[in-house]
């Protein structure tokens, strides 16, 4: 099946693989064709991020505070010229969910974030080894105090349950072996670096997934990441993130095989998903729910709003998707779990604050509209293209003016601003 390439699909690609496209990005992606647009997103290494760096420097953030590092990450997601890099960094932040609430050290959290970014589309097995030595992770899952006499099972267990294999693919014996294999993997308080304390490492024989020997942490990772169950876990998670949730088993297995064939390289997996038929199927398009991060970042990006990320950090805190502070080691929920009376209100009120910085003239430069209906359609297209039912469209038009004409002057500014606020508050815009 060949995938028709048009503005609708290009905008969809950017909603999923970036954080929504600006009008210029959508136009560019439409012109690049499917594979051109996907390759442009995944092969980002050569793209300069100097403009973003400058913008973030100008914010003068205090990176010793939690709000400071949260706004730093939010600003990157808004302004990066390599949006897929940030999309994948967020993906890994959710996967290796580590929270400042326990780590209590902003520098360690930033360091972990940079590690995740460096592996955004890298090799998972190498990534897992580095994550096992990451200071924030060593604190978060207590491995820094795991010693051979009394192994602490926290990291050894979650590595299997959440990070590599998934529940049902290991036994309690495997958990015990995994924990023993990571004993002595500690954190040096002086250097603030990983340290291997050989006197605290359990060198005796272990039994892990049927393999017996003096296994250490590296062996656990290479055995676990060679399992098909691991490939299925990563493939299903990445596919759900980009295309649609609860993928069919044969679809998962197809992408799991691509991932295993690529020896746990992430980029070929992501590229395969983004160019697949499933990615542009009716099940995928508008088939997910915007998470708070999606709603917050996309609205800012798509409306070309110059943001200092302050209001964004506020709504993300209320809605429970605060950068660097996932609720627990399993990461954030997905789908309709994000939608309730409290989160909807926070989305609407965030949009209201955000739009104080909205400039309709800049946003609609070069476009001329003469009726209320044309104005509504312009914004529905620019913020989607967002399909709404006839009733909703009619009400939006009546909101702009009672007789269908376009208001003038200050009244037009008020209505344009209110219209955008309304679209960001619509049930339809909460989908992705």
């Amino acid at each position: 099946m060949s995938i028709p390439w048009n503005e609708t699909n290009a905008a969809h690609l950017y909603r999923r693989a970036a954080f929504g496209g600006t009008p210029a990005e959508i136009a560019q992606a439409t012109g690049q064709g499917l594979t051109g647009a996907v390759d442009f997103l995944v092969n980002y290494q050569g793209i300069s991020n100097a403009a973003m760096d400058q913008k973030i420097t100008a914010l003068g953030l205090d990176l010793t505070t939690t709000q400071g590092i949260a706004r730093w990450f939010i600003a990157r997601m808004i302004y990066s010229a390599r949006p897929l890099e940030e999309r994948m960094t967020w993906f890994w932040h959710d996967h290796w969910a580590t929270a400042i609430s326990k780590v209590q050290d902003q520098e360690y959290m930033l360091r972990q974030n940079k590690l995740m970014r460096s592996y955004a589309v890298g090799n998972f097995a190498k990534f897992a080894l580095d994550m096992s030595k990451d200071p924030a992770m060593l604190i978060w899952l207590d491995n820094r105090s795991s010693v051979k006499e009394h192994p602490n099972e926290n990291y050894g267990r979650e590595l299997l349950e959440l990070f590599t294999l998934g529940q049902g693919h290991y036994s309690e014996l495997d958990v015990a072996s995994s924990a023993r294999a990571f004993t002595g993997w500690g954190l040096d308080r002086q250097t603030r670096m990983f340290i291997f304390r050989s006197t605290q490492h359990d060198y005796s024989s272990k039994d892990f997934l049927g393999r017996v020997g003096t296994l250490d942490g590296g062996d656990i990772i290479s055995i676990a990441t060679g399992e098909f169950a691991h490939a299925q876990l990563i493939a299903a998670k990445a596919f759900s993130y980009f295309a649609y949730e609860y993928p069919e088993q044969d679809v998962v297995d197809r992408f799991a095989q691509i991932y295993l064939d690529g020896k746990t390289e992430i980029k070929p997996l992501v590229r395969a998903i983004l160019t697949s038929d499933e990615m542009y199927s009716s099940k995928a398009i508008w088939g997910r729910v915007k998470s708070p991060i999606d709603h917050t970042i996309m609205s800012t990006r798509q409306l070309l709003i110059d943001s200092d990320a302050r209001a964004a950090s506020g709504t993300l805190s209320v809605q429970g998707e605060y950068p660097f502070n996932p609720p627990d080691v399993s990461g954030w929920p997905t789908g309709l779990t994000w939608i309730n009376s409290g989160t909807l209100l926070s989305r609407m009120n965030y949009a209201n604050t955000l739009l104080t910085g909205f400039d309709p003239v800049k946003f609609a430069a070069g476009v001329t509209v003469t009726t209320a209906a044309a104005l509504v359609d312009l914004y529905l297209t620019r913020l989607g293209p967002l399909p709404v039912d006839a009733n909703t469209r009619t009400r939006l038009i009546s909101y702009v003016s009672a007789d269908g004409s376009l208001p003038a002057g200050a009244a037009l500014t008020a209505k344009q601003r209110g219209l955008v606020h309304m679209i960001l508050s619509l049930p339809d815009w909460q989908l992705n």
Partner: protein
Amino acid sequence: MQSTRRTFLKTGALGVSISFLAPDFLLKSAMGGQFAPGKVLVILQLAGGNDTVNTFIPYADSKYRTLRPTLGIPDAQILKLDDRMGFHPSMSKLQTLYQRGKLAFVNNVGFASLDRSHFRCQDVWQTADDSYGQTQRGITGWLGRYADTYLPDIGSSLTTLSIGSKIALGLNANEVIAAAVQNAATFDVQTDSRYPGDGASYKATLRAIYDSARPPGSLEVVQNNGKEMFGSIDLLKTIPAASTTAIYPSSGLGNGLKLIAQVLAGDLGTQAVWISNGGFDTHGAQLNTHANLWTDVSESLSAFYDDLATRGISDRVMVMGWSEFGRRVQENASAGTDHGKAGTVLLMGDGIKGGTFYGDVPNLNDLDAGDLKTQIDFRSIYSTIISDWYGKDPLPVLNTSYANLGFVNRARPHVRGARR
């Protein structure tokens, strides 16, 4: 399940058509557009796996000292309840409530397939279904099923309420959508202050869009939650002020319980409330952490009880506190404890036969791979609450019969309709 009943709902929380649907005793009173009071269950989730052995301490068991050489609470500090069990020293306020007969606890609670996984155990507790797996969706929580089955639609958006930004799985329902409120004072739609003339038109249009019919699917779910939001905005404007006499700690839990007391005193039709408090996953250096957690729980619950009593509604509010599992009896090398199995459930309220505990004193000489053994299935607690507190048949909610633990004070006259 009556699939059409709820489709009437929430045409604005104070709509009038509800009188065709609700029994007389639940109709709103003539005063202030409020609803007649009913029994309320407040669920307090202690997320992360509370270390039961250091909270509800079987201090007379000689193994307590040998398995907890550094974490064991010194005997002199334990708040002793009888010659075998005592509370953690941070729980003096809960001890007082226990002595007054307002508090009870149930030992050795769990289920047969407890597997030390936070996520599966939390899901099982909330769905009351131990076949629960991670790939299922559209799953209902036990209290959500209770609401779907038994709570008549009285037109309140706050029938079931989650405090915070998340609806707990336990309140997930097919029909009764739970509200999520963190702060009542700021719970309203804002519009641009630069264009004050446009606010009314903006709000009216948005409400009309949310009130329009949608075909079933995700959009309809968003829409229904939006209707809840508008309904909650109207209702929360009517709640009484926060207590000035009950002394709540300035914690998330304290603030949440303070809000719950306001909402319940406002008679807004609320019958079930969920509040979650995290941080109980104490794998390392747990002595101080655990003490701080229980200081907060103890002071918050005690203030909540005082607040309810002052408002004259402590007889119709029950609190059930639970955690997804207990922790390993033997401490680990990090001065913490790893994931375990059976745990303890806390019960508070005038409706409890308190000042006692249910289930045997945990036996530290008879462990299940180092963990407390399950003696009481957690669903027998739910069953007892549904039957003796709410006065309903638990079977449609739980699908299986469970033992009645007898902790509800049924001798107390049913005070339906009584006001302070």
